[in-house]
């Protein structure tokens, strides 16, 4: 910029004998320009600093921390340092020998001596139970007795809980005896480690997440498409109406924005349920048999209908703002040159609305892929989405590592889709208003 300006000035300004341009007070023009621009850059930066600090502190940092949890694995290392060392020479086949159990005893004793706040066996029990059911019971029951164990320790531990006699528990302790783990991602992909330590698919009856991810994406695509189909004509109509009517109608489009999400979702329950308004009206009009009321809620249909309604304004607004800027004379010009109305629409009007469709589509898709409360209320079993599972792990099972892994995968998925969109369509063409 500075160079370009200086170059342009070269043509007209008077050139000193040294060949360098100077300002009125004698400083070289180039450095004066640079200084002025630096000052402007600093001002601009200071202006956005509060927002930047806010985003870093309350958005980027918590997300990074959450992502870190999906690989963070301190529990085994902290609770069982002696055992892990003794396990280094273990072949991974049979139950380990006395040396390992003596080390295990030493770890339990060391832990009992720590103040309660710092005890590591509780978190260890919870962590191991994610990998092997009943491991929590083995650890917490043993930790109450272990201090009193006498040598030989192997027998004492094997007596205290059956799991100590299972090589699987030892393999898990050895595998998870590292500060970082991939176990949460393995679980999030419906996979697990087998006896050799290689990753295999889980039993068919325990696979959930991959299926849910696919369903979430398909449902989001369907919702995005439906909002487009419903939103495009509305936005078009709004854009050709005179301003005073269109702003009145715009209020109707925006009205849902001002109503509580829960109220809107409950309204759909009242409308769609089997004893609800729609079913009862159809039965009352004799169009449907009382015994064959249609189930339109507590399934995928319910989620899609309710979410399409809730997300419709996110499609209409960008479409409207783009359509408003398309001069009607283009269509007239196309028609005057012989295009049929449908050709004029297809070849002249529609291509110009693409930035709005792109923006609306990306908005609706990204919002719906992480939607949570509506699927929980009207989704039944077939209309659930991945975010319902994430919420369950955050709030109920308290498996934050798995929740973080699922959340990170969702985040990465959205970023990949956005990147693809950017490659194919170009983010520059996004128009939000």
């Amino acid at each position, binding site marked *: 910029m500075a160079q370009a300006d200086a170059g342009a000035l070269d043509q007209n300004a008077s050139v000193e004998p040294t060949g360098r341009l100077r300002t009125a007070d004698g400083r070289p023009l180039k450095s004066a320009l640079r200084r002025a621009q630096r000052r402007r850059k600093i001002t601009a930066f200071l202006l956005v600093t509060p927002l930047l600090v806010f985003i870093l502190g309350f958005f980027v940092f918590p997300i990074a921390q959450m992502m870190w949890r999906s690989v963070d694995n301190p529990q085994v290392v902290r609770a069982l340092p002696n055992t892990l060392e003794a396990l280094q020479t273990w072949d991974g086949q049979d139950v380990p020998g006395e040396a390992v159990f003596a080390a295990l005893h030493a770890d339990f004793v060391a832990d009992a001596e720590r103040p*309660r*706040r710092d*005890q590591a*066996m*509780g*978190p260890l*029990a*919870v962590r191991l*139970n*994610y990998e092997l*059911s*009943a*491991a*929590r*019971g083995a650890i*917490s029951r043993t930790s109450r007795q272990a201090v009193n164990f006498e040598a030989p320790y192997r027998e004492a531990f094997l007596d205290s809980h059956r799991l100590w006699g299972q090589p699987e528990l030892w393999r898990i302790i050895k595998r998870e005896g590292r500060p970082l783990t991939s176990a949460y991602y393995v679980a999030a992909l419906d996979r697990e480690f087998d006896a050799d330590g290689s990753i295999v698919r889980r039993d068919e*009856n*325990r*696979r*959930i997440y991959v*299926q*849910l991810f696919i369903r979430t994406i398909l449902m989001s695509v369907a919702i995005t498409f439906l909002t487009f189909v419903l939103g495009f004509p509305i936005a078009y109509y709004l854009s050709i109406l005179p301003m005073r009517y269109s702003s009145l109608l715009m209020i109707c489009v925006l009205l849902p924005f001002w109503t509580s999400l829960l109220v809107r979702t409950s309204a759909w329950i009242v409308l769609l*349920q*089997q*004893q*609800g308004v729609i079913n009862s009206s159809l039965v009352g009009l004799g169009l449907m048999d009382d015994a064959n009321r249609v189930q339109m809620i*507590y399934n995928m249909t319910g989620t899609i209908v309710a979410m399409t309604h809730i997300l419709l304004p996110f499609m209409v607004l960008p479409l409207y703002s783009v359509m408003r800027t398309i001069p009607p004379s283009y269509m007239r010009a196309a028609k005057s040159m012989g295009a049929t109305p449908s050709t004029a629409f297809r070849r002249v009007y529609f291509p110009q609305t693409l930035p709005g469709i792109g923006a609306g589509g990306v908005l609706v898709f990204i919002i719906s892929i992480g939607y949570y409360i509506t699927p*929980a*209320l009207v989704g*039944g*079993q*077939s209309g*659930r989405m991945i975010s319902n*599972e994430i919420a*369950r792990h*955050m*709030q*109920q*099972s*308290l*498996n934050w590592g798995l929740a973080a892994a699922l959340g990170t995968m969702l985040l990465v998925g959205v970023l990949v889709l956005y990147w693809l969109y950017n490659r194919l369509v170009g983010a520059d063409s996004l128009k939000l208003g």
Partner: protein
Amino acid sequence: MTFKIKLAGASAAVSLLAMGAAQAQDPVSLTIVSWGGAYTASQVRAYHEPYMELNPHVTIINDDGSANALAGLRAQSQAGNVTWDLVDMLPSDAQLACDEGIIMQIDHDAMLAAAPDGTPASEDFLPGSLGECFIPQIVYSTVLTYRPDAFPEDNQPSSIADLFDVENFPGRRALQDRPGTNMEWALYADGVDPDDIYDLLRTPEGVDRAFAKLDEIRDHIIFWTEGAQAPQLLADGEVAFATGYNGRMFDAIEVEGQPFEIIWDGQVVEWDGWVVPADGNNLDAVMDYLYWATDTQRLADQAKFISYGPARASSAALVGEHADLGIDMGPHMPTAPENYFAPIVLDNDFWVDYGDEMRERFANWMLQ
């Protein structure tokens, strides 16, 4: 939250000023976390209000965070900023929190009142109800409820087996969207003795058997998530059967006048009670409150406001009439002899150990 506390602190200070310098104790505000709705209301009337009357320097703030108590406790503990003083939660969650060391261990005889006849607390509370870190208040149960008008008069359902009998008792069923209770009932309906259910569920064959039984009614189920959804679905006529907490069903039947009937067969009985977050700021005040609020009379008092049974044996004789409705509450208690004929006592050890695996299988089963 901070705002709330400040506000309560301010109001406590105002009331202190009003009383003048005669009051020697510093004002304390206790944040007590519970389930909200009718349940918190019963605690407010049975415990909080009388306690604040006796101890004017204490202000109690209610927080309806119990549904996510475990997550909240862990988050507060990790942030090093514990703002909850006392939390109402389920024993299985309490055991997890106890293992993590984020709630206090309880010495029941030293910290809690003895029964009026001198029986120490550890013997007065119902057998199996006390936990390492857990003080039970109530016994509640998950019961099957139905609409009598959904079935002919001469063919009304009466057992858990009828829930799984779609041919004789057609209609949709509202079940909770988690394995607890559903797995137990599947085996119970399949003829397993209540005492053997959890032994069987610890084996893969038992789990398969439970899911095979659940398969029989799969197409007739609507799953509910929030406790209030079950009575609502039943009231709307969306379902013929619904599982739900007996207290909510009592409210729907007696207070709202809904035409539901409760089936006490196979009721799944569980405790609910207090835990004390470790590193709270008002431990002395909390302990004083706990000693008072879990004594024999107070636990019996709570049953005046909600149909959950007191967790102390010595309280049972003191349960009287509902404070507003004037109904004798005895027959509505899950523990009343005529209701307690075939109870399934929830095995928390089982659910803490196997819960993750069961939830995964159940989620997978729901997805099919």
